[in-house]
């Protein structure tokens, strides 16, 4: 007896089905306007573990064929959401629709969704080929066809000739590829990836990231990746949802989220940016902690502003006024193509400032410098 | 993960199989009827009869004394052996030592019992000690059996623990003896306590080895029970079962209460 996994097609990438639901539009202003027809739709998903609310009436739509990242810290609910989509956890409330069909009660073995586990979860007693063939066997794929698809899948991830090996004879990167091949061979409509690069060392991450994107384009499947690493999410995904406390803090294209964080939480989680609290008045924003007046597009109700380190320039001569401040260099860290400076303003706040190499040697520790930025670089945060 | 209903049924079957006979035994301990399988109304008379059964009470007291002595000897011996196996490195005869200490774990009880009896007989013939068989020979046999278990528990505990702990202590100025006293001993104390309890219960429960190495003066509780059961179940055995089950349950509950993780 076979589940409804998409295993009947003889070869080639699975056809991305059209959906009755309308296309998804990204929320960010600078993202691509249309991604595609809705594949998966989560409606008011809620999940509690004892007293903890892991998912808080979460709504989310994933388009067919997109690369989606669920980004968040531990306890943000991203892993719970992934496990609910895979079918390992049942939501306490809400629905999960795949192609418009409610799959909330469908057990994991009957969902046309596959997962690549963070630990890879390769069966230690099976060879690489048998690991990859495992799901095909369950689906009743005939031996000849099975062997061909296993071979194709291993070739796709660059592991030809590894079929007789056992998982313990593989390196971390090879295990990751086997896990990928094992889930992709099922030709899922939706592939879930739990921290896919998490267990790889730094050198391998970048290359594997590009390979993941290439595989996603080649198969046409929707990839949903869970990660705690914002760089990974921004680099790989078409769209990113940042989760906080079981809710979506912001959803959009990577550039939109990076450039226009919607809240202090998002700005701080994405790292790097200086986030300064204060009060908005008459189109300006006063930050007492930094002793800075920000001018720019500051709507009323702004509670904080974000300013990226690379947008702050070290002025030839210190100056006063809006979008200008004076400070002392506390520390300088060389980062390759730039240096990161920690500069304490006279009011006492510390700003992170990036100084590009091409602009010459950075000021030394202890130097008093003037800082300035364009009004358009000030991001007003309403929450 | 969704759990199968079949699994829960199968697990329930296992627990029912384990518990049904015991619950019946305990329940019928409160029956007034002289036939131990017939309900004759609620009564505590068989508990009174049990307390008045001098043979059983004396056997129980002897068993407790033997078990306590054997467990204490087993902790000394097995503790030293487990420590040696875990920490002394490849000392001379280590393989033989390990095989000897572990042998009682895997030998069938009839073999251990018979060979120990033959030893005691031969010793008495050769040097006159132990004179006859009884509580002493049972204690020696049970200490040997218990030491095997204690050694395993202690060795496992030390294998889990970082051996650099003792080296750190000596690096900080502790002599080997002080390092043992202040680091190793606290480390293996739980294992020693667990080993003592294990040896104690083994001794209390053993009938085969005791039957071999005991004599007329060494009737332990299991030996007495064994000869009673050959004639069938009696209401006093029911009552004894109830006392033991309630006692063990009480101790488990108490232990759970004491060892309960504290919050806040």
């Amino acid at each position, binding site marked *: 007896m076979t589940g409804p996994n998409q295993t009947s097609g003889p070869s080639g990438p699975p056809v991305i089905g059209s959906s009755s639901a309308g296309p998804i539009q990204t929320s960010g202003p600078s993202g691509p306007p249309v991604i595609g027809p809705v594949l998966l739709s989560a409606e008011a998903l809620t999940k509690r573990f004892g007293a903890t609310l892991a998912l808080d009436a979460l709504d989310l739509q994933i388009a067919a064929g997109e690369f989606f990242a669920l980004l968040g810290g531990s306890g943000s609910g991203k892993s719970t959401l992934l496990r609910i989509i895979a079918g390992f956890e049942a939501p306490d409330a809400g629905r999960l629709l795949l192609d418009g069909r409610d799959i909330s009660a469908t*057990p994991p*073995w009957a969902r046309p969704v*596959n*997962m690549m*586990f963070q630990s890879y*979860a390769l*069966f*230690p007693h099976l060879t690489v080929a048998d690991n990859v063939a*495992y*799901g095909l066997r*369950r689906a009743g794929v005939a031996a000849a066809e099975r062997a061909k698809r296993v071979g194709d899948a291993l070739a796709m991830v660059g592991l030809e000739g590894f079929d007789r090996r056992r998982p313990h004879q593989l390196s971390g990167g090879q295990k990751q590829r086997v896990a990928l091949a094992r*889930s992709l061979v099922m030709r899922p409509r939706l592939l879930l990836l739990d921290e896919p690069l998490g267990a790889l060392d730094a050198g391998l991450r970048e290359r594997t990231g590009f390979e993941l994107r290439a595989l996603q384009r080649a198969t046409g499947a929707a990839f949903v990746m869970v990660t705690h690493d914002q760089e990974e999410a921004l680099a790989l995904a078409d769209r990113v949802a940042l989760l906080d406390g079981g809710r979506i803090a912001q959803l959009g294209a990577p550039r939109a989220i990076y450039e226009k964080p919607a809240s202090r939480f998002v700005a701080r989680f994405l790292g790097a940016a200086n986030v300064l609290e204060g009060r908005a008045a008459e189109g300006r924003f006063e930050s007492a902690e930094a002793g800075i007046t920000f001018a720019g597009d500051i709507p009323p109700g702004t509670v904080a502003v974000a300013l990226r380190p690379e947008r702050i320039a070290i002025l030839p001569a210190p100056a006063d006024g809006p979008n200008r401040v004076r400070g002392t260099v506390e520390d300088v860290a060389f980062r390759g193509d730039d240096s990161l400076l920690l500069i304490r303003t006279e009011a006492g706040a510390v700003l992170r400032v990036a100084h590009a190499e091409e602009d010459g040697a950075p000021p030394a520790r202890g130097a008093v410098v003037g800082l300035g930025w364009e009004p358009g670089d000030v991001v007003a945060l309403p929450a | *993960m969704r759990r199968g209903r079949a699994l*829960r049924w*199968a697990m329930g*079957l*296992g627990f029912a*199989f*384990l518990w*049904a*006979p*015991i619950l019946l*035994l305990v329940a019928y301990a409160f029956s007034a009827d002289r036939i131990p*399988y*017939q309900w004759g109304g609620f009564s505590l008379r068989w508990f009174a009869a049990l307390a008045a059964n001098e043979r059983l009470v004396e056997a129980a007291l002897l068993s407790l004394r033997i078990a306590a002595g054997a467990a204490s000897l087993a902790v000394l*011996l097995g503790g*030293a052996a487990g420590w*040696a196996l875990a920490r002394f490195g490849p*000392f001379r*005869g280590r393989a033989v030592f390990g095989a*000897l200490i572990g*042998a009682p774990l*895997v030998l*069938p009880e*009839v*073999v251990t019992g*018979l*060979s*120990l009896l*033959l*030893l005691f007989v031969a010793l008495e013939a050769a040097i006159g000690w132990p004179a006859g068989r009884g509580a002493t020979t049972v204690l020696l046999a049970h200490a*040997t059996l218990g*030491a095997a278990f204690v050694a395993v528990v202690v060795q496992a505990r030390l294998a889990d623990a970082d051996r650099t702990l003792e080296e750190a202590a000596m690096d900080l100025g502790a002599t*080997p*003896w002080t390092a043992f006293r202040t680091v190793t001993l606290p480390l293996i104390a739980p294992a020693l306590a667990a080993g003592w309890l294990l040896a104690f219960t083994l001794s209390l*429960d053993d*009938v*085969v080895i005791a039957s071999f190495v005991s004599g007329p003066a060494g009737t332990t509780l*299991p030996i007495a*029970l064994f000869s009673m*059961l050959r004639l*069938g*179940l009696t209401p006093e*055995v029911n009552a004894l*079962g109830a006392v033991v*089950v309630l006692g*063990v*349950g009480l101790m*488990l509950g108490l232990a*759970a209460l004491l060892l309960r993780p504290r919050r806040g």
Partner: protein
Amino acid sequence: MKARALLLAPAWAWLLLFVAAPAAILAAIALAEPDSGLPPFRLALSGAGFAPLVEDSYYLDALLVALRVAAITAGLCLALAYPMAIGIARAAPGRRVLLLAALMLPFWTGFLLRVGAWIGLLRDEGWINGLLRGAGLIEAPLAMLYTEGAMLAGMVHAYLPFAVLPLFAALLRLDPTLEEAAADLGARPATVFLTVTLPATLPAALAAFLLVFIPAAGEFVIPDLMGPPEAQMVGRVLWQEFFQNRDWPVAAALALCLLGLLILPIRLFQRLEAR
């Protein structure tokens, strides 16, 4: 180094006296000649103890019956233990402690008391027959005690925790994502068990089997109190030879034969434990 020698010396002495010497004496007596004196043997290299074992199929049968009964017992224990171990390992930590206590409490109530409880269940006038007669299902009592079935029930009951615990430990070590991955790839629960859980816990299952099989093969009390009088297990025969027939060489030879048959399972068990 001196302190270590001082510590090891008493342990060595004890082990040589109470473990090594008895084994040597056992071997010596197995080779000795029976005698009417006291002790009832004369040291010699006679092989008289082994002669009846070869000549009379009674002894060989007793050994074979013991191995068969031990194997069935261990198999039944495994069948019962797997779902219990899986259930306990998957339970939430608080419930897990309760289930473990429920597993161990019957074990701690004492071996003979549990045998007594089974006698109460299975006797002609025992609880099961009483229930069946009360319900009008039977006229005459079913003869259940003193059958091989009764003996097996008693043995499985006695050894079941020994089978559950190693399986439980192995299941706790088993990465739960392996089972999830199998389900994710389309395997139903029964298939997950057969293709992932069972292969991954096979060494523990073998250890559990041996942990029951080895002591069960020498079991004496349960066959004596609950078993059929005709099918003798080696433990009971050994006992009778020693205490009733006072044939020490034959008893010692039987003990050695039992050991010889068990040495392979014992070594296998030790190999599994050392991993």
